[in-house]
C-alpha cells in the first residue's frame, strides 16, 4: 500500500515534542537570562530620585547617583548630611519615602535574601560580634557564603600577629577593623558597601586598611561604595567621588578632576561645602 505524505503528521509537533522543547528552552533560558541580565548590568548601584525624612525632618530630596561596575566611589559630606542614611537605605535597613534603590539590579525592598551573599557590608565602627574569637567568627560566617576563602582571612590575621583564640572584645580598634576587612575578603563579594571605615583608626591602621582594600578591589574588579570623613584616605583609594551637602549633591565626578597641582581633594571639598 502506498504511503502518502501526511502534512499534519509530520509538521505539527506532538504533545511530547512541545513539552520537550519547552523544557529545553526553560533549562537554557533561565540561566542565560540571569547571565545576560548580570553582564549587561553596568551600574551595580542605582540610587534613583530618593527622598527621605526622619519624622518631619527632610534628609534629602530627589537624590540620584549610580556606581558603575568595577569603580570605587567615595561619598564625602559633613556630619548629618545623610551619608549613613544612604548606606542604610542601600543595605535595606531603611525604606526611603520616595524613589527606588537598586543593588545588582534588584530593588533593595524585594531583593532575594541569597543575593546578599554578593554584597559585603562594613558597618560604622567595624561592628562585629565581640564575644567571638578570631577562629569562631570565621567558622560562624563560612557556611553563609558560597565563595568563602578562609585563607584570605587567616593571611591577614597572620599579618596582624593575632592568635586564633583571641576574643574580639579584647582587641584594639585597629585590629578589629582588620578582622572586619579580613571577613569581607573571605566573603569575596562583588559589591562592597563600607560605612565610615576610617572611624577610630590611627594613621597606621588607616593606611594598612586602605592599601589592603585597594589591592583586593583591583585584583578582583570589585565595585565599592564607601563613606569616610578623612579625605586624604579617599584620595588614595577612590576612582569617583560624590560631595554631598545638606539635602543635595554638590559634585559627582572622577577624583582626578578634583585634584590639581594647586588643590588637594580636601581644598576642593572645603571650597564646595564651606569651612564650617
Amino acid at each position, binding site marked *: 500500500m502506498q504511503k502518502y505524505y501526511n502534512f499534519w503528521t509530520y509538521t505539527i509537533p506532538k504533545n511530547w515534542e512541545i513539552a520537550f522543547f519547552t523544557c529545553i528552552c526553560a533549562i537554557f533560558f533561565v540561566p542565560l537570562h540571569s547571565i545576560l541580565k548580570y553582564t549587561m548590568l553596568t551600574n551595580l548601584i542605582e540610587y534613583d530620585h530618593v527622598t527621605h525624612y*526622619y519624622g518631619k525632618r527632610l534628609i534629602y530630596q530627589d537624590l540620584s547617583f549610580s556606581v558603575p561596575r568595577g569603580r570605587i566611589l567615595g561619598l564625602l559630606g559633613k556630619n548629618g548630611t545623610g551619608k549613613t542614611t544612604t548606606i*542604610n*537605605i542601600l*543595605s*535595606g*535597613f*531603611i*525604606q526611603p519615602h520616595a524613589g527606588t534603590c537598586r543593588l545588582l539590579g534588584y530593588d533593595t525592598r524585594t531583593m532575594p*535574601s*541569597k*543575593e*546578599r*551573599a554578593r*554584597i559585603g*557590608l562594613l*558597618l560604622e*565602627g567595624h*561592628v*562585629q*560580634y*565581640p*564575644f*567571638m574569637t578570631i577562629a*569562631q567568627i570565621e*567558622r*560562624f*560566617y*563560612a*557556611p*553563609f*557564603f558560597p565563595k568563602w576563602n578562609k585563607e584570605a582571612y587567616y593571611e591577614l590575621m597572620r599579618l596582624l600577629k593575632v592568635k586564633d583564640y583571641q576574643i574580639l572584645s579584647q582587641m584594639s580598634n585597629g585590629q578589629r577593623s582588620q578582622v572586619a576587612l579580613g571577613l569581607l575578603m573571605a566573603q569575596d563579594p562583588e559589591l562592597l558597601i563600607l560605612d565610615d571605615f576610617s572611624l577610630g583608626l590611627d594613621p597606621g591602621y588607616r593606611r594598612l586598611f586602605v592599601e589592603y582594600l585597594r589591592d583586593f578591589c583591583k585584583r578582583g574588579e570589585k565595585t565599592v561604595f564607601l563613606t569616610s570623613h578623612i579625605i586624604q584616605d579617599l584620595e588614595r583609594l577612590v576612582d569617583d567621588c560624590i560631595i554631598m551637602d545638606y539635602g543635595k549633591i554638590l559634585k559627582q565626578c572622577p577624583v582626578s578632576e578634583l585634584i590639581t597641582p594647586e588643590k588637594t581633594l580636601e581644598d576642593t571639598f572645603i571650597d564646595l561645602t564651606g569651612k564650617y
Partner: protein
Amino acid sequence: MLRAIFYKEWLKLRLFWGLAVVVHIALIGYLLLSLRSTLLASGVVETWATMIGRDILMINQLTYLPLITGVCLALCQWLPEMQAKRIRLTLHLPIDNQLSIGAMLGCSIIGLCLLFGLDAVLLAGFGQVWLPRELVWRTFLTCLPWYLGGLIGYNIVSWWILEPQWKIRCVDILIGAPLVALCFLTTQPACYIQMFPWLIGLLLCTACLPLYSIYRFKLGKQ
C-alpha cells in the same frame, strides 16, 4: 546555615545557660531538702494533711524563678544585638530575615523548655519519693502557669528590646506587663486548670511579637 546561627547563639549565651542550670538546680534542691526536713520534723501524715487541707505546697519560692530566667535570657540575647545596631549583621546574612531571627528565638525557647523540663523532672522524680502521685501532679499544675509566664516574659522582653522606637517601647511595656501578670494572679494550687489553653494561646501569640519588631526595624523606624 541555621547551624551557624545556633552556634553563634551558643557562643553568646553559654555562660547564661551554665549559670541558669546551676541556679535552677540549686533552688529545686533547696525546695526538696526543705520538704524532706519538714517531713522528718512533722511526720509524713501531718505534712500531707497540711498540704491537702490548707492548700500549701511549699514551692512558693519557685514562683518568679522562670520569669526571672526568661527576662534575663532576653536581655542577654538581644541587648548585645541592639548595641550599635549589631542586629544588622544578622539581617544582612544571605538567609531570610524572619528565618534567622526565628531560629534565634526558637533556640532560646527550646533552651528554656529544656531547663524548665529539668526542673519538672527533678521535682517529680524526687517529689515522688516522699509524696503521693496526686500531690506531685498538683504541684506540677501549680507550677505550670509560672513556667508559661517565664516563656511569655521572654517573648515580651524580646519584643520590647527589639522595638526600634522608644515611644512604642513604652506602649509595649504597658501591653506586655499585664499579659505576663496574667500568669501570676494567684499562687493557690492548681487554680489555672481552666486557663491553660488560653495561656498557651497567649504564648503562641506573643511568640510573633519579636518578629513584628524586626519588621519595623527593617522599615527603618527610628
